[in-house]
């Protein structure tokens, strides 16, 4: 069964540093998402991406965040200047269609720790 993969699985960084989280969505999927989950809290939507453009972003997704699909397979989330409160699990997801009722397939996540 096709899977969404994410690298790295863990990332430790110093406050103020830039991090790039990488995802490889399922190959025939056209819609891509990032979510985050702070320890002990609920999964929160960050951004959706389609046709090389952001479709929707949440209030969390401020100017420190950016997404990119640099080639035909990777989908990245960049945090320019990390803050302590960015420490969380970051999940990438993909789906064939763009409706909320489409099944989204989530990756295993990247655990980001900002010191």
């Amino acid at each position, binding site marked *: 069964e096709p899977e*969404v993969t994410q690298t790295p699985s863990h990332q430790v960084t110093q406050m103020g540093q830039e991090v790039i989280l990488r995802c490889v969505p399922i190959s025939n999927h056209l*819609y891509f*998402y990032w*979510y985050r989950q702070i320890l002990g809290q*609920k*999964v*929160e*939507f960050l951004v*959706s991406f389609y046709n090389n453009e952001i*479709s*929707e972003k*949440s209030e969390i997704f401020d100017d420190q965040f950016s997404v990119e699909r640099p080639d035909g397979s990777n989908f990245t989330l960049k945090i320019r200047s990390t803050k302590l409160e960015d420490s969380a*699990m970051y*999940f990438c*997801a993909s*789906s064939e*269609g*763009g*409706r*909320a*009722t*489409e*099944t*989204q*397939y*989530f*990756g*295993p*996540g990247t*655990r980001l720790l900002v010191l």
Partner: protein
Amino acid sequence: LAKTTQPISMDSYEGQEVNITCSHNNIATNDYITWYQQFPSQGPRFIIQGYKTKVTNEVASLFIPADRKSSTLSLPRVSLSDTAVYYCLVQPHGSSNTGKLIFGQGTTLQVKP
């Protein structure tokens, strides 16, 4: 988006049937009900989706009464590996809606031996 309410936690024993009910009193006509499962330190995983009556797949059943103001996820004969958080989502189905999923706190199911 319709607000959902589900129990924070539930306990069960191996081999039992588990029913998790979700309330969504202000569900709209074009809303679908979807359940996701999340194991510790993993991403959520789609379980089942329905609009009305009953839906069954190899993992679970979803019961939706006629008024659609609630839904019940049924897990037959749970095992220890079913210990997870279960999320009930109510999402609109329409071409103008984005794929944004809104997760609540979910129900933490603990299956005991």
